[in-house]
């Protein structure tokens, strides 16, 4: 009886007419839009100021003289070719060492490690991500620099190689975490399908799981590269900072970031502008990196 009368009541309720303007809805849409604009406005502002400050140096010294010039002798010569080489070489070295280690760690965590072990390794890796770069610099100074001195029998271990090793460790957590997440996100049916065809676990990992997780791994690598190329403090502490073209991994070098950080406090005039110009080159690398990532992942999206 009771339920029957309730049902009758609900059928009698009519729908209210739509409000002309839903203020709450509008307020939140506005809030979301403003939040989204913070990032966009920041990136435009940063880009604009760096270009505004850096352009005079390009005008004064010439684009080619700055980008391809090998001598950095303010206030006469503003060539940053040696720093471009140092930044690219240290980053590429870090990627060559760090990325394989990171991907194998990610596979270990996602596929191979027993739960208890993964639960020890994963927090350790995440902790690595939180260590300030100045502490990485300390680590490089007391461990890696002396090790290079003894190993290669050279007077000063503050070299490109020391930078490469420190950066390789610094990019590990980013690449590991993102790669592991993207391997774990794969549908388990890929692995089942491969194993059901008689493939070994290792074969399935290298031929199905890693390729299927490729776009996530690319993203991790790109973020790692961005971190390596933008790293400043640790690099200043271990890489020697000589503004000359490094002839080998065992020579000191100065990265683009180190150049800006070390001279900004006292530079004036065109010298100051040349440091902004260094920043423009750095920005250009980051933009290329992101464009490359977009391209790679877009191609995959259609696959």
């Amino acid at each position, binding site marked *: 009886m009771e339920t029957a009368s309730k049902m009758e009541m609900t059928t009698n309720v009519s729908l209210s007419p739509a409000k002309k303007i839903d203020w709450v809805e509008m307020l939140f849409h506005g809030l979301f839009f403003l939040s989204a604009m913070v990032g966009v406005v920041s990136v435009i502002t940063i880009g604009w100021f760096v270009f505004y400050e850096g352009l005079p140096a390009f005008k004064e010294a010439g684009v080619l003289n700055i980008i391809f010039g090998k001598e950095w002798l303010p206030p006469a010569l503003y060539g940053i070719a040696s720093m471009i080489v140092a930044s690219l070489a240290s980053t590429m070295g870090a990627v060559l060492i760090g990325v394989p280690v990171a991907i194998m760690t990610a596979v270990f965590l996602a596929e191979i490690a027993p739960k208890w072990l993964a639960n020890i390794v994963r927090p350790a890796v995440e902790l690595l991500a939180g260590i300030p770069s100045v502490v990485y610099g300390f680590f490089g100074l007391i461990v890696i620099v002396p090790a290079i001195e003894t190993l290669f029998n050279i007077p000063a271990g503050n070299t490109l190689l020391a930078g490469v090793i420190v950066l390789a460790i610094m990019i590990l957590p980013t690449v590991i975490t993102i790669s592991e997440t993207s391997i774990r996100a794969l549908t388990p049916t890929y692995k089942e399908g491969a194993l059901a*065809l008689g*493939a070994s676990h290792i074969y*399935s990992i290298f031929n199905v799981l890693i390729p299927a997780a490729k776009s996530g791994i690319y993203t991790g690598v790109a973020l790692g590269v961005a971190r390596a190329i933008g790293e400043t403090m640790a690099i200043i502490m271990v890489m020697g900072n000589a503004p000359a073209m490094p002839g080998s991994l065992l020579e000191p070098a100065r990265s683009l970031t180190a150049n800006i950080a070390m001279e900004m406090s006292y530079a004036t005039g065109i010298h100051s502008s040349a440091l902004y110009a260094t920043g423009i080159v750095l920005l250009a690398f980051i933009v290329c990196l992101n464009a490359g990532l977009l391209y790679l992942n877009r191609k995959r999206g259609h696959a």
Partner: protein
Amino acid sequence: MNKLEVNNLNLFYGENHALKNISLPIPAKQVTALIGPSGCGKSTLLRTLNRMNDLVAGVTINGDVLFEGENIYSDIDVKQLRMRVGMVFQKPNPFPMSIYDNVAFGLKAQGEKDQQVIADMVEESLRGAALWDEVKERLHSPALGLSGGQQQRLCIARAIAMQPEVILMDEPTSALDPIATHKIEELMDELRKKFTIVIVTHSMNQAKRISDKTAFFWMGELVEHADTATLFQHPVDSRTRGYVSGEFG
């Protein structure tokens, strides 16, 4: 001659007794259908036949599964077993690579290097799965671009490229529309000539249409198994009678 023979098999997921003392002969070159309500253990049993349950943590199994007289739960090479006992899954699961690479995958995993051998087998398998004519122009385009029914036939092609003796099918048409289902059933009529097929199905009509033998499962027990016609027309057990007549389940 029984291709596979399950003897007094018990399977536990932790404490949960999922398969209770199952004994079932699976004759060669016939289609054996496993039917029963959800959670009755039919898929679990299917996955013991190529040891896919090894992937699940906390599974304990006792009893025997004989493949040509040899117990697959003894110390055998699981990879070889899975090459000879292929599997098609409920949801089509082609790998995110080209159609060609999907079919070639098992051969390459096995170590086959001769590209001509692989190419021939890819064509033969796609023909065998009645997919060749639809994809021969685009063998190198992504498999994920195929329709659901085509993807499932691709998975069948991938399985038969290994030249297995047995094909296990876990509700292979439950994610497909009626037309695609019909195509797969037609295909199975061809496949039964060469392979021993064990199929799990929710659809009693499908079991009637395609199988020679049917086994009915109920809450982890094998209630009865018989020739398909006999089981559906003259079920012995009251639970079977209730299920096949649609009273419950």
